[in-house]
């Protein structure tokens, strides 16, 4: 169920094909929903139909009477810790006494057939006493607590310079971004197999095997070595799989029935069963001097964390630290807070706090440019961060910071020449069937730049372990880094070939057995962290090989190097193929790789809390039918700070894929809530870009300035495409329409009904500057 991946060619810098690509295109790759075990049962989870309620009773007797039902479990059956959570375990495995969001798990069933499990779940009688849900995040700041731990997850203040400083030009704005869903195509799913030692083998799609293991072990009250978590094929993640979902319920059912238990969510359950991107409510005031140099940035940011904490803490820190964006400013007064509500829990999604504030600060930069009468690109260049500058946290940028370079190369790219007057109807706003009136189409161009931190921060002990074994000319690499589609499996093999000069590389299955954590596949960190661990393990093996050869030849190991698959010495005494040199011996080394230490922020948000930063610029061209409010994104151009290109084609894929999610966030995607009820948990109602919605992406430049300290000079590239791309699209719509459009996603009525009250209907918090001191 977890298979090794073998490949035989491709060095760093080449567009090597994925080693899991052949089974994937043949339909033979085993995703977590494809697993099978003899005698397996099917699980189904009972979920709360209320966003807020008291549980009066749970009666499972009718479910247990259904033929084919093998077990029903509730919170009473969780033998260990009854709750879980990435930062703090405040989320019940199964709710007891109280439910705090619609979709919260109440019970689970295992049965012979999935339909029997569904019917048994429906036969469980839960008596609820619905209570008024607390769904407004600003009200939640003052309201009575809806959880014993209170309603505030984290307040992050950042104060720098003179809070009274002011500039000749001041612009103010209020902005919102909605609740985006990762919409990873592979549903939450997995298979739990009870083991003879009383433990469990769990095959699951996750982002972080070892943290799953720790949390499952606590809930099951089993020692770590009896909870073995194996990576099954992951059908995308984007943050949705960082928290636990199915892991504890199916493990418990498997232990209780003594049989393997499988579960597969349907799409509605997936929407209800994982965290989303925090909606953000943001008030901003920018001060600049008459030349357009930023003097001060003020921001008040409220993030709706939903019912449970998940990763709200770190999302809040990011939102606060990146509040001014990739610009130099000496004075800052920033207050960000994440709060608990009865909305669905929010946590990690690609961009992680930086995506939300970018929407506000880039709109502010455009406003500021207009107020100053300066070209918006010029204003950005004037304030662009560079190496050696100080961030609002007081951290000095010691790494590369080619902000001006990404702006210049992106802005200089030619604009598309096609003309709405002659384009095919399908390519007009609205596409087939709702085709826009050509004469009423307005074209707009928008620009945005973003900043994102790489890897875990704030003093977290962030590491990855890898093992390399060289035997009979074959290098086997073991690492628990999770492949979610991004291409780590390709890169790990490229690195191994590069260092050892062998062709034949096997990547062992990712599992918690016999190897330490690789950390999470998130925060754009695996290329640097697990790539660094693999590189270090391979280098350690190479050193052992060199020592062995040096001893044979009676020379110093220092003079040896690997060139084109051969070990050669500087003096020419040694020139032997690696395959031959390593024959008959086995070399194995395991290395734990850590990035340089980071530190927690102090009470004023000051401190060296990050390792490295990456930047990207996006330019969007849109056509808008101003009468119908329909938008077609015509093209996106981008430049990105990537350090070093390790696999060009995979890198392009990261940029295009991230930008697609940015197009979605700009004009299509939002979890629509009505008093805590998710109204669109399907791909019919939560629309993600199709091939017709997604414009061509032109990559103006990969800015390659090797990052000091990065094992291969590369910066993680997954998140920057989704930090500023949505901002560029909305800026382009503003340019086409002249509307303020302070909220993403932009809906047709926000454009077509902009002069009426028809576009409102949501809580608005323009007063958060007063609520947050």
């Amino acid at each position: 169920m977890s298979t090794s991946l073998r490949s035989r060619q491709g060095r760093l810098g080449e567009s090597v094909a994925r080693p899991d690509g052949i089974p994937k295109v043949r339909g033979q790759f085993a995703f977590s929903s494809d697993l099978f075990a003899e005698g397996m049962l099917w699980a189904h989870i009972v979920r709360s139909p209320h966003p807020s309620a008291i549980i009066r009773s749970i009666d499972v007797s009718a479910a247990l009477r259904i033929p084919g039902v093998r077990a029903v479990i509730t919170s009473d059956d969780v033998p260990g810790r009854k709750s879980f959570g990435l930062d703090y375990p405040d989320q019940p495995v199964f709710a007891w006494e109280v439910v705090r969001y619609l979709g919260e798990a109440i019970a689970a069933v295992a049965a012979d057939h999935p339909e029997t499990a569904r019917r048994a779940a429906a036969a469980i009688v839960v008596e609820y006493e619905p209570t008024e849900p607390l769904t407004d995040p600003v009200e939640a700041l003052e309201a009575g607590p809806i959880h014993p731990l209170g309603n505030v997850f984290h307040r992050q203040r950042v104060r720098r310079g003179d809070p009274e400083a002011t500039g000749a030009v001041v612009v103010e704005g209020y902005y919102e971004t909605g609740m985006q869903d990762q919409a990873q195509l592979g549903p939450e799913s997995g298979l739990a197999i009870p083991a003879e030692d009383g433990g469990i083998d769990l095959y699951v799609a996750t982002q972080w095997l070892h943290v799953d293991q720790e949390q499952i072990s606590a809930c099951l009250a089993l020692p770590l070595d009896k909870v073995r978590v194996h990576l099954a094929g992951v059908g995308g993640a984007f943050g949705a799989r960082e928290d636990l979902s199915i892991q504890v319920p199916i493990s418990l059912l498997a232990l209780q029935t003594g049989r393997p238990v499988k579960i597969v969510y349907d799409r509605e359950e997936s929407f209800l069963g994982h965290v989303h991107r925090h909606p953000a409510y943001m008030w901003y005031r920018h001060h600049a001097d008459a030349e357009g140099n930023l003097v001060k940035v003020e921001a008040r940011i409220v993030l709706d964390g939903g019912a449970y904490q998940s990763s709200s803490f770190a999302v809040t820190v990011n939102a606060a630290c990146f509040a001014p964006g990739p610009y130099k400013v000496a004075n800052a007064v920033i207050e960000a807070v994440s709060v608990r509500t009865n909305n669905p829990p929010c946590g990690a999604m690609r961009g992680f706090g930086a995506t939300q504030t970018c929407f506000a600060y880039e709109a502010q930069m455009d406003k500021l440019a207009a107020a100053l009468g300066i070209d918006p690109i010029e204003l950005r260049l004037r304030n662009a961060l560079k190496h050696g500058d100080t961030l609002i946290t007081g951290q000095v940028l010691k790494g590369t910071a080619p902000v001006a370079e990404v702006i210049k190369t992106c802005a200089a790219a030619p604009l598309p020449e096609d003309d709405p007057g002659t384009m095919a109807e399908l390519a007009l706003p609205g596409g087939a069937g709702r085709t826009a009136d050509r004469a009423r189409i307005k074209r707009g161009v928008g620009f945005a730049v973003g900043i994102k931190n790489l890897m875990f921060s704030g003093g977290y002990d962030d590491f990855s372990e890898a093992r390399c074994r060289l035997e009979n000319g074959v290098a086997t690499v073991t690492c628990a880094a999770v492949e979610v589609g991004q291409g780590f499996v390709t890169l790990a093999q490229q690195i191994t070939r590069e260092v050892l000069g062998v062709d034949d590389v096997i990547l062992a299955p990712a599992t918690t057995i016999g190897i330490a954590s690789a950390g999470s596949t998130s925060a754009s960190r695996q290329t640097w962290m697990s790539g660094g661990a693999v590189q270090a393990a391979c280098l350690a093996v190479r050193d052992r090989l060199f020592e062995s050869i040096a001893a044979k030849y009676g020379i110093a190991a220092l003079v040896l190097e690997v060139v084109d698959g051969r070990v050669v010495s500087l003096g020419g005494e040694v020139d032997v193929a690696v395959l031959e040199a390593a024959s008959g011996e086995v070399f194995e080394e395991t290395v734990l790789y850590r990035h340089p230490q980071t530190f927690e922020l102090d009470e004023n948000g000051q401190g060296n809390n990050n390792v490295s930063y990456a930047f990207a610029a996006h330019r969007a061209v849109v056509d808008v039918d101003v009468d119908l409010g329909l938008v077609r994104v015509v093209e996106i151009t981008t430049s990105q700070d990537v350090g070093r290109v390790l696999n060009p084609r995979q890198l392009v894929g990261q940029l295009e894929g991230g930008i697609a999610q940015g197009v979605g966030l700009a004009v299509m995607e939002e979890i629509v809530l009505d008093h805590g009820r998710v109204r669109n948990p399907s791909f019919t109602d939560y629309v993600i870009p199709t091939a017709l919605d997604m414009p061509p992406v032109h990559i103006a430049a990969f800015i390659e300035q090797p990052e000091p300290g990065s094992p291969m000079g590369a910066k993680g590239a997954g998140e920057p495409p989704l930090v500023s791309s949505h901002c560029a699209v909305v800026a382009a719509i503003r340019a086409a329409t002249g509307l303020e459009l302070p909220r993403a996603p932009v809906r047709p009525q926000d454009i077509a009904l902009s002069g009426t009250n028809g576009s409102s209907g949501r809580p608005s918090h323009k007063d958060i500057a007063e609520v947050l001191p």
Partner: protein
Amino acid sequence: MGELIDYRLRVNGVERDVAEAWLGESLLYVLRERLGLPGSKNACLQGECGSCSVLMDGKLVCACMVLAASAVGSEIVTVEGLTPGENELSDIQDSFLTEGGVQCGFCTPGLIVSVHDLLEHNPDPTELEVREAISGNLCRCTGYGRILAAVQAVQESRQR
């Protein structure tokens, strides 16, 4: 679940027995869970995403929307049926791999089937026609750029 039924499906040119099945099972469930053909995927289970695309009597359908028992007498072709023998790939599969059209891979089998169907009926589509033809197949990883490149590469190689 009421009476269980037996029937026979013709899948990828082979008669397959389905025994003691619940009448309500979808073609997708039967392919994946009873016939050992998990290539057709289950991203939405309600006809929205195209990940379970198969050919039924030569017509592109979502297997999740077909009642398996209603497919008796039909010719079903899945991604496995479009795959040549061991260690071989169709030109479309090979192109998806080499052009970078695959990331997580969950949408890939459905897209392979859709693109196969498109090029059978329209060997030389415009880019807009390709976009329209695959607009029923959602992909969340790639932004479609490398998928379009893969289709274009197949078109070019077939014309040579």
